[in-house]
């Protein structure tokens, strides 16, 4: 109670918002000075402010999947680093995946905030660095040990008392394919940490440590109470769901993701124990990110509209056995982080059984647009430009899903505008629009996914990290999933050696031709791929839509007709999926529609049987 005396609700509220705005200012600094599109366009970063007891005070997460990942990481830095006591002006760099919950390219930088010669707080930023010397440029899709994934820095001072540690920077530069870009982004991050340190320091100076800490206690317990009340309002019980990843990048078998949710009074447990054990390829996930995935889902049901703080997550328990898919241990390969996407989808799927009226159906499953790597003609520098497809989101009990939005696990991420792609890469975009008929049919329709066609003008590298292209999403209450995610690789057949070129230069990690009877010849239908494409080659990426809600034959006829006029739904699909027959003038054929729709309705959705890839010898 004595701590409470040092503050009042008004001051605590001002301090709470002050911290959030400090985080926002850090973010602006980072975005304005960064060198990589992955930071300034895509928002692939997360930054946070912690108090000296490592309570999360505020964050500006570029994307949801980074929610709380820094909290795990900073604990590991302070526990494991041997860089000696921190001093004012220091910045520590750590990128050991098992500590950061990410991969080597997502280093975590930590800067202490000193007030009266003692550490009062920390500012932390993680952002994607273009290259840390892993075996392949861009993204690493098929490593079998972490030692193929780049140089690891176990928490060393990259800035000492305000001065860059040139030795360490030289080592990083020597190991990176993109030293100039990495240095640009490093400086941007240091600038952002400095802003944070300055703002937080001002806060403590202004209000005094006692008042700030008393306010923090108020903020955290208010967050905790609110979250507990929200869990208490949900039913007690246990729910499970499973989902499948295409493969691990090394062996061509579906990989099981399984989640069990337990709600008991005011606590929730997310248990990953039923998921696959560790796998040979780089889809294993560090515990930090497995926790983040659970936190996103938890937050969206408890305190969705409030800035994050550590108190809000106290009622959440996470179980992931060491050495399993969701708690990777050395030296498991971990580069893709994509199991995090799948985890979010699966947790929501389980929660939809607990509180279907509050949930949406499946959200497209993945974000598979290609990323591009190589020497950018414009700067002559090694680059990694990731682009992420927009998927359709699931319909809800009372409305259609949203069209073409980033997957829910990374929903704040932006696409790279066509004009930026074409300004920086030897690539033309021939098409960027909705994928017709991709919304899962339902009384309320799932949102539509996107389509983009990229045509190469000169040789350049491209890949996707796509991990869900073989198994469908899910509808709710009789609603259906959309089609699958699909990468189509179309060689330039005017090139005489096109066959050799594709065989030699392109790896398709998940051949999906077994799923498509209507695949044209000479093109590849696949999930994840990587390769050096040549002039005239085309990558077409078709993103999945969201799942539908309720039986599609119950959808309002006029809405179906309007969907056809606009082109969200084709006339054929209107008839097949919705039982709505339209004339050539797109008027409703009332009689034919009535007949078509005269069938029993479904009240529950079902998971169609799995279609596993045909067995084939191991690639390596």
């Amino acid at each position, binding site marked *: 109670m004595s701590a409470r005396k040092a503050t009042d609700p*008004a001051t605590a*509220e001002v301090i709470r*918002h*002050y911290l*959030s*705005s*400090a985080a926002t*200012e850090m973010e602006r*600094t980072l975005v304005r*000075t960064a*060198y990589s*599109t992955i930071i*300034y366009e895509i*928002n692939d970063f997360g930054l946070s402010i912690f108090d000296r007891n490592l309570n999360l005070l505020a964050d500006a*997460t570029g994307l*949801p999947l980074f929610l709380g990942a820094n909290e795990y990481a900073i604990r590991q830095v302070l526990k494991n680093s041997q860089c000696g006591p921190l001093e004012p002006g220091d910045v520590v760099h750590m990128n050991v995946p098992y500590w950061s919950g990410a991969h080597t390219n997502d280093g975590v930088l930590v800067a202490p905030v000193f007030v009266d010669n003692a550490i009062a707080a920390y500012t932390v930023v993680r952002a994607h660095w273009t290259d840390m010397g892993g075996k392949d440029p861009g993204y690493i899709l098929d490593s079998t040990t972490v030692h193929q994934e780049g140089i690891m820095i176990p928490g060393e001072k990259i800035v000492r008392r305000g001065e860059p540690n040139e030795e360490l920077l030289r080592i990083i530069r020597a190991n990176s394919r993109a030293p*100039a*870009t990495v240095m*640009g982004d490093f400086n*941007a991050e*240091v*600038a952002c940490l400095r802003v944070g340190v300055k*703002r937080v320091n001002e806060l403590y100076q202004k209000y005094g440590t006692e008042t700030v800490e008393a306010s923090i206690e108020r903020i955290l317990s208010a967050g905790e109470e609110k979250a507990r009340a929200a869990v208490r309002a949900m039913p007690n019980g246990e729910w499970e769901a499973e989902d499948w990843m295409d493969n691990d990048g090394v062996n061509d078998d579906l990989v099981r993701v399984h989640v069990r949710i337990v709600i008991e009074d005011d606590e929730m447990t997310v248990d990953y124990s039923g998921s696959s054990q560790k796998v040979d390829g780089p889809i294993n996930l560090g515990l930090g990110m497995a926790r983040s995935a659970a936190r*996103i889902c938890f*937050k*969206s049901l408890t*305190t*969705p*509209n409030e800035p994050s703080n550590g108190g809000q997550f106290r009622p959440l328990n996470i179980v992931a056995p060491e050495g399993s898919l969701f708690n990777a241990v050395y030296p498991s390969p971990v580069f893709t982080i994509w199991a995090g996407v799948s985890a979010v989808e699966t947790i929501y799927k389980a929660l939809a059984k607990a509180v279907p009226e509050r949930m*949406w159906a499946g959200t497209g499953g993945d974000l598979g647009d290609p990323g591009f790597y190589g020497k950018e003609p414009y700067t002559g520098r090694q680059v990694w430009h990731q682009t992420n497809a*927009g998927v359709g*989101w699931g319909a809800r009990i009372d*409305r*259609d*899903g*949203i*069209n*073409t*939005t*980033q997957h829910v696990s990374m*929903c*704040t991420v*932006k*696409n790279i*505008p*066509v*004009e930026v792609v*074409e*300004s920086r890469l030897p690539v033309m975009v*021939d*098409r*960027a*629009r*909705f994928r017709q008929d991709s919304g899962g049919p339902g009384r309320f329709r799932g949102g539509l996914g*996107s389509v983009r*066609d990229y045509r190469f003008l000169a040789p350049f590298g491209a890949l996707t990290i796509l991990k869900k292209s073989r198994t469908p999403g899910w509808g709710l209450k009789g609603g259906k999933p959309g089609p699958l995610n699909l990468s189509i690789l179309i060689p330039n057949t005017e090139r005489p050696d096109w066959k050799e070129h594709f065989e030699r230069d392109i790896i398709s990690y998940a051949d999906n031709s077994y799923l498509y009877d209507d695949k044209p010849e000479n093109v590849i239908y696949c999930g994840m791929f990587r390769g050096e494409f040549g002039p005239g080659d085309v990558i077409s990426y078709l993103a999945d839509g969201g799942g539908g809600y309720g039986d599609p034959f119950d959808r309002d006829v006029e809405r179906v007709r309007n969907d056809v*006029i*606009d*082109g*969200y739904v084709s006339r054929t699909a209107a008839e097949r999926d919705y039982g709505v027959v339209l004339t050539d003038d797109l008027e409703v054929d009332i009689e034919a529609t009535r007949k078509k729709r005269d069938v029993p309705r479904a009240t529950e959705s079902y998971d169609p049987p799995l279609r596993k890839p045909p067995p084939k010898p191991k690639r390596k």
Partner: protein
Amino acid sequence: MSYRLAVDIGGTFVDAVLFDVSSGAWKLEKSFTTPTNAAAGVNAAIKRLGIDGSALDSFIHGTTLGLNTVLEHKGVVTGIITNAGFEDVFEMGRYNRDRAQMYSLEYDVRPPLVPKRMRLGVPGRLNAQGEELQPLDEDAVREAARTLVEKWKVTSIAVCYLHAYRNPKHEQRTAGIIRKEWPDVSVSISSEIVREYREYERTSTTVINAYIQPIFRRYIGRLEGGLKDQRFAGSFYITRSGGGALLAHDAIAMPVHTIFSGPAGGLIGAVRLSEIVNRPNIIAVDIGGTSTDACVVREGTPTLRYQAELEKLPLMIPAYNISTIGAGGGSIARVEGGLLKVGPQSAGAEPGPICYRRGGTQPTFTDAAVVLGYIDPDNFLGGEVKLDEEGARAGLMTHVGEPLKLSDIEAGRGVLDVLLARTVSAIREITVEEGLDPREFSMLAYGGAGPMFVPLVAREMGVREVIVPQAPAGFSAWGMLMTDLVQEYSETAVGLLEHVGLERLREITKRLSAQAAADLERGGFAPKDRAFEYAAALRYFGQEHTLETPLEENDTLESLAKRFDAVHKQRYGHTMTDPVQLVHVRVRGIGRTPRPALKKIPRREKGTLVPRTRRKAFCFARRAMVDFSVYDRETLRDGDAVPGPAIVEEPTTTLVYFSDQQARVDEYGHLFITVKA
């Protein structure tokens, strides 16, 4: 004799301020907005000032017309013509969710402003260098336009092609084709509005422009006609969203640049006032008939927004960071689901509050203020309009009091309490949520309903002081008089400084300055009133975002690069060794206008201030009806202290503060309201 006239038009009132350039005197006229013909209201206001149009040098105008058109979804039916294959860019956006909703399970699927069926693609393609890869298919353009106009009945078309910021030819040709075949259809092309890349943001800005353009053009045309009838032959300006003004002729083509022009005038006034009263940190609160606009002035500068946004659509225009809510004197009170709601619907000028006797039947904030005793029914607009107090009371009882089982006073108080909560939360957004403590600011109260409500807001938020300017109801118009003409010119020239070279840099600067000078000449500015600001948008090679770096007359490439290093270092704390790259050269041509001086009021030589009368009104400090002293503002003198509870009346507004507050009058007649010691 020469005069400048500023007219600010809001949802309810038109404020006209006439400034006599030679004597520095100014006066305010206020009249009702005429929703069916806004221009007529403006012309009426000018007539009432009794000035001959030929005596006016310039006419400066700010309007919320464009903004309200978008907010109320009352724009024209708009279509899009874009590249084939890219028809959905406008609806897909950047694929991201609003950060504020990143964890939310709720979502609102709003139909896009331009439905999918009205977005058509045509063949024709440029690359990022602006080179033509595929010629524009003119027949396809004609066909698309025909479908939009004849089948879907659009009256305005936004044209946005990829890379048009580099080469506007396809867009210009498209506009030419449409204008020739359908001269009545408005055409907005992206390259004329924004010369920056990012197709979604540029499309969205162009669509907003197209959506309001016919309405805006008609409006300006009517105004011009009215001005001409009054023999006006001077320059006609419209205030811009981010400060300065545009020639009306230029504004017609790109009304999107004036979309936040209404509130901009008040902020220019706030900056001037902050200098005069030496208060660099101000929260400016403008409460009109329809809306409340709040903006923070820090160290004498209004805060700008990173990227403006309207109805979730990005706008690539500079704009002040204004928080707006639909809450004002005309906000309608009603009961919904057992809860008392006030606004955002406004009775506006027609039918207006019940007490205006213009046909209003729903009780508003103003009706509540009459019932609570703040407004003297016999002395509104200087006694010109006699308010219907009993009608206001009866309406308030029928719609609020009876359903909630409250007395008339309780109902009136409830209306103010609800508005108070909404207003406080809007102001928190731009203060507390930006890490600013409102207790460290002065609050400036203006707009017709500002002085009646802001002291209550300040009390609630713990703000230490409220400043009430002269003629607060016309403050925005007064601010517009301070506006300089600002025209911006830019040219994109991407390249390392060393590659572009000093000569080319100078040549571009010279060309842009000549253009600026010619336009200032055209605007009637003598050379001594012209000013030029030069800047280079620079970045380190490899960065994306640029920093505006001042460019000086005798700069060398080295001195410019050094200055950029310094700016970068100051802003972000570090420099890079990468070479410096030029992206744009910008020249700002400024036509300086004379500023009205503030007239001082006399000191009280003898005797003390005596209230004109007393009347019962509701005191929020005591939460009861008590006796308020009522003063005429014109009887106040420099140095007067006026304890609360008090009501200070002037013809166009009423100031109300409470028993725990007091006011002090300065030499200009400003009132400073503070908490009693």
